[in-house]
C-alpha cells in the first residue's frame, strides 16, 4: 500500500465537497426540481392536476380528447398530468399502494363496484353535497340508479361518469339473412326463451356455425357478465355474495338453470365452445356469427372495421325480467391533504369531464350525467340510443371486499363459467370449484 498522498486527498475532498454543495444547492434553491420533488414528495408544478385512469383502446382515445378539453380551459398541457394504467386488479393495487404511500393522484377513475372496497380501506374520501355545490353540481344531476348505487354508509363515495352494461352486438348482414330485422332495419324484439332460441337457430343456419359468441379463453370477465345477466333475469334470485363477501348466498338452482342452458347452446352449435376476446369479436365482424355479447365499449372497435354494418341492443330478456350486468366508471378522490382551493380545483376537473359526457357517450357508455343523457344530441346518437334503456336494468356485482369488476371474485367465478362453456366441467363441478376456491375469502375477515 503506497503512503497516502496528501495532494490526492485534498483534490478528492475538494471534488467531493463540491458535489455535496452542488447537491444541497439544487435541493434548497429549487423546490420544484425533480430530485427535491422525489425526496420530499412535493409536486413539480403545484397547479398541475394529477389524474389516473384505466382507459385503453377507444375509451383511452376519447378520454384523451376530454383531457385536452380540460387543458384548453386551464392553461395548456402543463395543467394536467394524466396517466393510464392497465385495468383490473393491478390498477387498484397501484392506487392503493400510492395512497398508502402518501403519493396518490388528485383525482382517479374507479369502477363503482371497486370504489366500495377502496372506501372501506380508507383509500378514498367521501364527497359532500357542499363539494358538489361548490362547482355547480348536485345529486339530482345524475342517473338516480347509478347515484344510489355509489352511496355507501350514507356517504357519496364516487361521482359516476357512466353506466356500462353488457349488450348484444349484431351483424346487420347476418341478421338480415336470418330474417331478424324489421322494416326499419332494426333488430326485432327477441325477448322470451323460445323467440331467442329460434333466432339462434336461424342465425346458425345462415352462418353454418355459431349464432352467438362469448369470449371465454384467457377471459374471465365476459363469462361472468353473461352469467350475471341471465341469472338476474330470473325472478326472486338471491345475491351471489352477501354480508360484504362473508356469505356465499348464490341460488344454486338458478345457477344450474343458467349454466345448463349455456351448455345446451354449445352442444347445439349455437354458442362457441372456446374463443378468446379478440377471436369472439372478430367472428362477429367477419360475419362468422350473428350475435356477440360484450360491453358496449367495443363499439369503437366495431366502428373501426371498414364496411361493417352492425347494431347494438340490450341483451334479450330470456327469463322473467330485464336485467344486464353493468358497472360504472366513477371519479374518486383518493385520501390526501387538500387545501380548500385544491379541493375545488379537483372537483372542477370532475365537473368539466362530466360536461364532456357526449364525447364519452360516443364511445358507447351511457352517460350518468343527466343533462347529457336527456339531450337531443345523445338521443340522436345511434346505435347508442338503442340500448340506453339498459342503464335502468343494470345489475351491479354484489359488494364484497374481494369483489367488483376485474376482481378476484370475477376471476374465480368467471374462470369456472368459461370452463362450463367449454364443456370442460359440469355446472355442479364448477359450483364445487367455486365453493372451494372462495372458501378462504368467505372465511377471512376483510383486511380493509
Amino acid at each position, binding site marked *: 500500500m503506497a503512503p497516502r498522498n496528501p495532494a490526492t486527498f485534498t483534490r478528492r475532498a475538494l471534488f467531493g465537497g463540491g458535489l455535496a454543495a452542488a447537491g444541497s444547492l439544487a435541493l434548497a434553491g429549487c423546490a420544484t426540481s425533480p430530485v427535491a420533488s422525489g425526496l420530499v414528495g412535493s409536486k413539480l408544478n403545484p397547479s398541475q392536476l394529477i389524474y389516473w385512469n384505466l382507459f385503453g383502446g377507444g375509451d383511452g382515445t376519447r378520454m384523451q380528447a376530454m383531457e385536452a378539453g380540460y387543458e384548453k380551459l386551464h392553461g395548456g398541457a402543463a395543467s394536467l398530468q394524466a396517466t393510464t394504467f392497465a385495468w383490473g386488479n393491478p390498477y387498484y393495487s397501484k392506487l392503493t399502494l400510492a395512497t*398508502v404511500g402518501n403519493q396518490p393522484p388528485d383525482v382517479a377513475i374507479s369502477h363503482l363496484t371497486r370504489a366500495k372496497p377502496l372506501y372501506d380501506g380508507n383509500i378514498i374520501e367521501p364527497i359532500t353535497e357542499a363539494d358538489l355545490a361548490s362547482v355547480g353540481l348536485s345529486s339530482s344531476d345524475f342517473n338516480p340508479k347509478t347515484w344510489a348505487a355509489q352511496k355507501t354508509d350514507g356517504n357519496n363515495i364516487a361521482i359516476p361518469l357512466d353506466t356500462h352494461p353488457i349488450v348484444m352486438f349484431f351483424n346487420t348482414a347476418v341478421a338480415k339473412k336470418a330474417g331478424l330485422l324489421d322494416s326499419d332495419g332494426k333488430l326485432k324484439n327477441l325477448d322470451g326463451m323460445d323467440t331467442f332460441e329460434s333466432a339462434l337457430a336461424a342465425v346458425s343456419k345462415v352462418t353454418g356455425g355459431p349464432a352467438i359468441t362469448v369470449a371465454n379463453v384467457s377471459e374471465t370477465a365476459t363469462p361472468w357478465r353473461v352469467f350475471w345477466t341471465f341469472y338476474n333475469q330470473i325472478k326472486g334470485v338471491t345475491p351471489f355474495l352477501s354480508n360484504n363477501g362473508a356469505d356465499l348466498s348464490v341460488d344454486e338452482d338458478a345457477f344450474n338453470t343458467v349454466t345448463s342452458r349455456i351448455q345446451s347452446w354449445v352442444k347445439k352449435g349455437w354458442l362457441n365452445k372456446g374463443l378468446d376476446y379478440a377471436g369472439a369479436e372478430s367472428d362477429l365482424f367477419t360475419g362468422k356469427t350473428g350475435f356477440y355479447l360484450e360491453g358496449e365499449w367495443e363499439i369503437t372497435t366495431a366502428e373501426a372495421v371498414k364496411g361493417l354494418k352492425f347494431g347494438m341492443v340490450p341483451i334479450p330478456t330470456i327469463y322473467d325480467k330485464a336485467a344486464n350486468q353493468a358497472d360504472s366508471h366513477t371519479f374518486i378522490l383518493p385520501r390526501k391533504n387538500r387545501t380548500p382551493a385544491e379541493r375545488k380545483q379537483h372537483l372542477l376537473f370532475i365537473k368539466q369531464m362530466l360536461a364532456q359526457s357526449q364525447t364519452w357517450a360516443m364511445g358507447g357508455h351511457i352517460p350518468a350525467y343527466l343533462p347529457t343523457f336527456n339531450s337531443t344530441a345523445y338521443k340522436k346518437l345511434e346505435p347508442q340510443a338503442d340500448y340506453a334503456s339498459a342503464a335502468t336494468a343494470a345489475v351491479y356485482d354484489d359488494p364484497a371486499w374481494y369483489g367488483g369488476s376485474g376482481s378476484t371474485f370475477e*376471476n374465480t367465478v368467471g374462470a369456472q363459467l368459461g370452463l362450463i362453456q367449454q364443456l370442460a366441467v359440469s355446472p355442479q363441478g364448477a359450483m364445487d370449484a367455486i365453493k372451494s376456491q372462495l372458501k378462504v375469502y368467505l372465511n377471512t375477515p376483510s383486511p380493509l
Partner: protein
Amino acid sequence: MTATPALGRTAAARTTSEVRSTKRFSPLSRGDGRRAWLFLAPFGVFYLAFLLGPTVWMLVSSFFNTSTVHAGLGSFAGFKNYGEMLTRSDFWSSMWHTLQFTIYTTPPLVILAFFFAVLTNRIRRGQWFFRLAFFLPYILPSATISLIWVFIFTPSSGLFASVQSALGMTPGAGVLASPNTAMIGVAVATVWWTLGFNFVLYLAGLQEIPRELYEAAAVDGATTWNQIRYITLPLLSRTTTLVILLQIVASLKIFDQVYLMTSGGPGISTQVALGLITNTGFTDDRIGAASAASVLLLIVIVAIAVIRQIIDTRLARKDA
C-alpha cells in the same frame, strides 16, 4: 478462508486443513479491512435495504394480520397465517403447479441446451450464427415472449391452430384454454425463451475441453458417440451441476410467463406459488398471509438447493 492462526492450541491438535490454511498468509496488512468495508458499503446498504430488511420484515409480518392499507403490523396472528396456507387447497395446488413447471422445464432445458451446444461446437464455419440464433430469444423480455406465444396459441386463428388446420386436424380451443395443456404451453414458451442461457454455459464448457483429447480418441478409433460419452459428458459434469441447480431455482421462481399468458387460468390450473403470493399480498391486501406463503416457498427452495448440493458433494466424493 480463515487467515488467523488458531492460537492457544498445539500444532498437533490442528487438523490438516487448518495447517494448510495457516500457511497461506493474507497479503492484506492491518487496517486494510476497514477500507475494504468502506468499498463494500454502497452495495451493503442496498443489500440491507432491499434484501435483508424486507426478508426480516417478511418473517415478522408472517405472524401478524398485516394489511396493505393499514400502517404497522396489525394484530398478532401467531401461526394462523401458516395454518391457513397449509390447509388451503389452492396453496397446495399452486405449489404443485410450481413443481410441475419445474419438472416440465428443467430436463428439456438441460438436455436440449447440451444437445444444441454439442452440435454448434462441431460446426467450424458460421458458428456465430447458431450461437446468436439460440441465444437471441433469451434477450427478449418476458412480456414479448408471452405475446408471441399467446399469438401462437390463439384459438382458431393462431399459428398453432393454422398449422393444425393445414394438416387436416380440427383445432380445439387452444393449448392455453384447457386446464390439462395450459401449463405445457407455458413450459414450451419458457424452454424456447431461456434455452439460450444454458446453451451458452455449455458452449463455454465445451470450448474448455482440449481438442487433442478428441483427436487422440479418434486415432484410437472411438466413435463420435463414444467421444461424447467418455470425454464430453465427464468433462462437462461441473457445468451440468451448475446448469441444473440454476435451472431448478429459476423454474421454482416462475411468475411472469404465467401472469402474462394465462393469469393462472383456466380456473387455477396454472396458478403458481408466486402468483398466489402476489394476489394475496397486493390484490387481497393481506401482506401477513402473503408473507407466510413466501416463507413456505423460501423453505422449499432452500431445501431443494441444499438437497441438490448434498447429492452433488456425495457424488464428487465418490468420484475422488
